[in-house]
């Protein structure tokens, strides 16, 4: 039966044999990570293109429209056309920009979110690096985007960009707290920080952690949406108030990298939500007999969660800045503290379940 582990082993075997035939066996330790990075980058780029198309289709159908349908079958090549257009576009730069942060910001925005992907297990054994502090790593590395956004806002030498950067700093700092606190009960239950370990716990326990920790799931999805700067928390780039926010002065490839970074942030947070709450690569209950490979289950759940985040964007109106702060500090954080306490009491009185 095809599983992610077999697939990875097959590819690794073929690669190592090929390298051995080419007489490059000494470079395996260098080439392996490079291959992983390239495969991951290719997968992410294609998946982001698909997601942009999906977002346009989802929003269109929610508004009784059709959406892109001219380029390619069902408009699938529309984002490819957009990407080509963005790469060959002139790179317009403001004259009085602060040069070094201006260049570094899009790179950080892209790299920081992209680096979060390497600890996500797509299937049993199908993970770039199974860190034993995976959750800590993802939370730490993805919040680097705030540096990118702040430096982009500052270096653009534009008041709207600066305001967007400030708002983003306030927002990400506020929503980092409930994001971490919604993962604390999971760590308490499973006793591990590794994503593979969390999924293995769920396999052993026989239930997904979304059922005992539904509140934590809601808090996580909400604060992940805020972390990714997506509507209804898109005040750093609120089109109607700040033109484009921090990426007002960016064009061409640099703008594309910010755009890519936003979608990768969505993918990473949804992947974390799927792994932690929805059982990762585990099949849906009562569908074990279908023998569908684990990574297909993972992708199906991932698309479902991403659809949910897209539905948020096209349903809810944008919050004001003060409402955003109220919601973060007065609602999400107290509720997540209560959730941690409740989980602790349950573990104390009923045991851990496994």
């Amino acid at each position, binding site marked *: 039966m095809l599983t992610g582990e077999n697939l990875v082993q097959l590819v690794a075997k073929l690669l190592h044999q090929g390298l051995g035939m080419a007489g490059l066996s000494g470079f395996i330790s260098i080439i392996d990570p490079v291959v992983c990075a390239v495969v991951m980058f290719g997968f992410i780029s294609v998946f982001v293109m698909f997601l942009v198309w999906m977002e346009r289709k989802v929003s269109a*159908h*929610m508004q*009784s429209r059709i959406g892109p349908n001219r380029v390619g079958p069902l408009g699938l090549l529309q984002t490819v056309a957009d990407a080509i257009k963005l790469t060959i576009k002139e790179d317009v730069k403001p004259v009085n920009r602060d040069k070094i942060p201006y260049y570094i910001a899009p790179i950080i925005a892209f790299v920081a979110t992209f680096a979060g992907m390497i600890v996500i297990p797509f299937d049993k054994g199908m993970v770039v690096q199974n860190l034993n502090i995976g959750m800590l790593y993802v939370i730490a590395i993805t919040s680097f985007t705030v540096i990118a956004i702040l430096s982009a806002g500052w270096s653009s030498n534009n008041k709207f960009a600066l305001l967007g950067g400030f708002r983003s700093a306030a927002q990400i700092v506020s929503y980092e707290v409930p994001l971490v606190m919604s993962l604390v009960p999971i760590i308490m239950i499973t006793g591990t920080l590794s994503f593979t370990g969390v999924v293995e716990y769920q396999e052993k326990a026989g239930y997904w952690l979304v059922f005992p920790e539904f509140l934590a799931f*809601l808090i996580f999805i909400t604060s992940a949406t805020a972390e990714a700067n997506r509507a209804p928390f898109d005040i750093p780039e609120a089109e109607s108030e700040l033109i484009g926010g921090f990426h007002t002065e960016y064009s061409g490839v640099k703008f594309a990298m910010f755009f890519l970074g936003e979608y990768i942030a969505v993918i990473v947070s949804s992947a974390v939500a799927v792994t932690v709450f929805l059982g990762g690569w585990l099949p849906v209950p009562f569908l074990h007999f279908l023998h569908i490979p684990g990574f297909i289950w993972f992708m199906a759940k991932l698309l479902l969660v991403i659809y949910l985040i897209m*539905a*948020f964007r096209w*349903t*809810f109106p944008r919050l004001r800045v003060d409402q955003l702060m109220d919601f973060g500090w007065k*609602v999400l954080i107290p509720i997540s503290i209560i959730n941690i306490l409740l989980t602790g009491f349950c573990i104390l009185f009923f045991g851990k379940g496994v």
Partner: protein
Amino acid sequence: MGALGSYFKNIFLGFWNLMIGLSITTKYFFKPTMTQQYPEERLPLPERSRSMIKLIYDGEKDQFNCVACMMCAKACPNNCIKLEGVRQADGKRRMTTFKLDFSTCIFCGYCVEACGFDALTFVSEEYENSVYKRGSLLQDEQAMRWNRPAHLAPPAEEPAETKAAAGAAAGA
């Protein structure tokens, strides 16, 4: 209910309202779209919609209904109608040339209202007025000729005798 109770109640109500919104968008997500892909799909317009102005051509008598009374040209606020007519051997006037410049026409419909001889009308199925040259919008009577289908014709007038009889009856 104390402050704490209303705090939790507010959170729950807010969550519930967001779920209502999500259910509506999800419902619309699965509904069929209402977009018409215009060049491929065309909606039939209502028969009385204001589209192109046409000259009604009477197939039976092999002539236009227009008698060149100039009422339409006088009613036109933009002076875009130019027409000429001659008196025929039987003493009736007939239109010879009719020119309507659609580049200045505002489709106000005054000419159609002013026409007393059922000669000018709006036609619903022709509404694509884009042309490559401005001059192409100046249409003459041959371009505006339109054979009216029978179901759009006005009801036939009653014969004069019955009308007079009805008038006499009303008078008596």
